[in-house]
C-alpha cells in the first residue's frame, strides 16, 4: 500500500468515527429545527444543549449559557474582537493590545479596527515565540479596551503565559480575549482560573467537523449581537443551528479532553523525537520555545532550501505537512509568524511544520525521519544558496 501520513493536524483534523457516529442521526433522523416547540424539534435542541454543556465543561466555564456557537474560529475571533472594540469605544476606550504573530483572523480584524481609528499595540514575541507579561502590563493604558493574545500559536506551537496575562488584565480591568483554536483539546484550559473573558475555539482542530466553532463570552461582558434575526444563541447569533455540526463539536471536545493527558504524553514523545533527530541535519533549527509548546507541534527551518519544494517532495513520499515559505503562503513574504520571531526571510523560506494528532504514531515519526534528511540533502544539492552558505562557512573558519 502507498504510504500516507497526515502530519498537518494544525491545519485540520479528521472527524473521528466516534464523533461521526454521534452526528449522523442529526442529519436525517433528528432533523427537527431546534427552535420548534414540538418534541421532535426539542430533541434537536437537546442535542445542541448537550454540546453546549460539553464545551462549557471542557473549558471550565461557570455556565453553559456563556458558550455561543459560531461558524468556526475566524468567526469567533471576529465577533470577540470587533464586538469588544465597538462596545468599549462607546466608553472612550480605543486602544487594543495584541501580538505580532496572531492568526490572520485576529490580525486582519485589528487592521480594520485601526482604519476605524483604534490604536493597536502589537507585542514582540521574542525569538522564543513567547509574550512577556511585564511588557504586556507596561503596554496597558487608561484607554485600553482589549487585550487579545492567542493561547497557542498555530505555526510554531508556542503556548503563551495565559494565566499570568489573565491576571494582569483583571488587575487593570481590561477585557481579555484569547484565540484558543490551537489549544482547545490539546492542553488543559480553565477560563475561570486563567481569568479569560472571551475565548475562541474551532471544532475541526480537535476531530470535530469543519465550519462550526464557539465563542465563550463570560457573563457580564457586553458585546453587540453578531447576527440579527431569530432567537438562536439567545438572539446574539441568529440562524437555524447547525445541529449535526454542533453535536459533533460537543462530542469531539469531550473525547479530546478525556484523552488529553495520555495523548499529550504520547505526542510530545513523537514531537521531541522528530525535533531531536531533525536537528542533527546541519544548519537546521527549531522554531519556538521547546518547553512551552503544543504536544503535537514540530516547526523547523532548513537553511538553503525553500519550503514549497520540501513539501512537494514530502508529498511524493506520502507525507502531508505545511510550510511558512512565501511560495506556500501565496505572497512574496514568508509567514508573519516566522518573521515575528526574528528569522531572516531566507531562513523562514525553508520552514517545515509537522503537526500530530491522535491518529499519528511513533512509526510515522520514524518514517518521516527516514525520508526528510535525503530530501533536504537533494534540495541543497540543487541550491546555489546552499553553496553560498557553505562557502561563507569556509571563509569564516
Amino acid at each position: 500500500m502507498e504510504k500516507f501520513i497526515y502530519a498537518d493536524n494544525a491545519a485540520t483534523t479528521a472527524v473521528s468515527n466516534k464523533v461521526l457516529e454521534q452526528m449522523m442521526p442529526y442529519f436525517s433522523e433528528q432533523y427537527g429545527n431546534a427552535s420548534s416547540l414540538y418534541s421532535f424539534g426539542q430533541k434537536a435542541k437537546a442535542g445542541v444543549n448537550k454540546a453546549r454543556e460539553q464545551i462549557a465543561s471542557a473549558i471550565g466555564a461557570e455556565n453553559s449559557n456563556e458558550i455561543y456557537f459560531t461558524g468556526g474560529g475566524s468567526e469567533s475571533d471576529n465577533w470577540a474582537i470587533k464586538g469588544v472594540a465597538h462596545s468599549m469605544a462607546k466608553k472612550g476606550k480605543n486602544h487594543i493590545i495584541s501580538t505580532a504573530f496572531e492568526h490572520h483572523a485576529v490580525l486582519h480584524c485589528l487592521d480594520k479596527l485601526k482604519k476605524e481609528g483604534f490604536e493597536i499595540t502589537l507585542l514582540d514575541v521574542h525569538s522564543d515565540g513567547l509574550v512577556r507579561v511585564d511588557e504586556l502590563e507596561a503596554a496597558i493604558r487608561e484607554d485600553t479596551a482589549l487585550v487579545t493574545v492567542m493561547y497557542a500559536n498555530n505555526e510554531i506551537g508556542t503556548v503563551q503565559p495565559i494565566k499570568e496575562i489573565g491576571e494582569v488584565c483583571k488587575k487593570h480591568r481590561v477585557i481579555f480575549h484569547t484565540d484558543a483554536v490551537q489549544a482547545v483539546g490539546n492542553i488543559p484550559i480553565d477560563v475561570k482560573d486563567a481569568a479569560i473573558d472571551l475565548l475562541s475555539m474551532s471544532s475541526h482542530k480537535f476531530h470535530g467537523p469543519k465550519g462550526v466553532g464557539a465563542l465563550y463570552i463570560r457573563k457580564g461582558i457586553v458585546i453587540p449581537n453578531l447576527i440579527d434575526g431569530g432567537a438562536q444563541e439567545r438572539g446574539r447569533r441568529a440562524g437555524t443551528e447547525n445541529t449535526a455540526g454542533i453535536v459533533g463539536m460537543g462530542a469531539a471536545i469531550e473525547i479530546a479532553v478525556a484523552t488529553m493527558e495520555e495523548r499529550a504524553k504520547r505526542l510530545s514523545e513523537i514531537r521531541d523525537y522528530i525535533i531531536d533527530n531533525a536537528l542533527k541535519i546541519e544548519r537546521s533549527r527549531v522554531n519556538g520555545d521547546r518547553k512551552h509548546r503544543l504536544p503535537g507541534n514540530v516547526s523547523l527551518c532548513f537553511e538553503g532550501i525553500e519550503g514549497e519544494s520540501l513539501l512537494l517532495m514530502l508529498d511524493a513520499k506520502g507525507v502531508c505537512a505545511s510550510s511558512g515559505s512565501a511560495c506556500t503562503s501565496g505572497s512574496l513574504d514568508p509567514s508573519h509568524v516566522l518573521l515575528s520571531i526574528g528569522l531572516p526571510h531566507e531562513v523562514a523560506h525553508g520552514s517545515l511544520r509537522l503537526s500530530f494528532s491522535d491518529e499519528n504514531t511513533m512509526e510515522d515519526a520514524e518514517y518521516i525521519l527516514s525520508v526528510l534528511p535525503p530530501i533536504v540533502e537533494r534540495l541543497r544539492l540543487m541550491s546555489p544558496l546552499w553553496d553560498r552558505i557553505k562557502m561563507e562557512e569556509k571563509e569564516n573558519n
Partner: protein
Amino acid sequence: MYTEQVMEHFTNPRNMGEIADADGVGEVGNAKCGDIMKIFLKIKDGIIEDVKFKTYGCASAIATSSIATEMIKGHSIEEAVALSNKAVVEALGGLPAHKIHCSVLAEQAVKAALWNYYDKQGIDPAPILGENALCDCHDCDHCGE
C-alpha cells in the same frame, strides 16, 4: 495547482549541476525573495553545447530552470537569446498566476549567463541582449538590499 509537466521537471530535473569551465555563468534572483537561479553555459561555434543549472526556490522555480536548459541545449546562441518566459510557460503547460515570475527568472538567468559569455569575449552584450536584460525585479521590494 501544477501541471504534470511542472511536476515532472521538478521531480526529475534535467541538466542539474555545474560546469567547472563554463564559458558563461549567470545568476539571478535573491535569497530574500526565496528564489535564486544560476545557469552555466558551454558554448562552441555559436552553439550551446552544454548547459547546467542550480536553483534555490519553489517547485516552479526548479521546473522552469530545468525546462529552460532543455530548450536551449544544442541550440544556437541566437535561439537562446530569443528564449522568452512565455515560451517557458507554454512548454510547461502553464503556471499558476503567482508563479509566472519564476519563468521570468528562468529567461533572465539564461540572459545573465549569455551576458557573462559576451562580456568574456570582449563583446558588448547590451545591444544584443537589451539594456534591461538583467533587471530581475518582480514586484517585490526586497531587491537592492
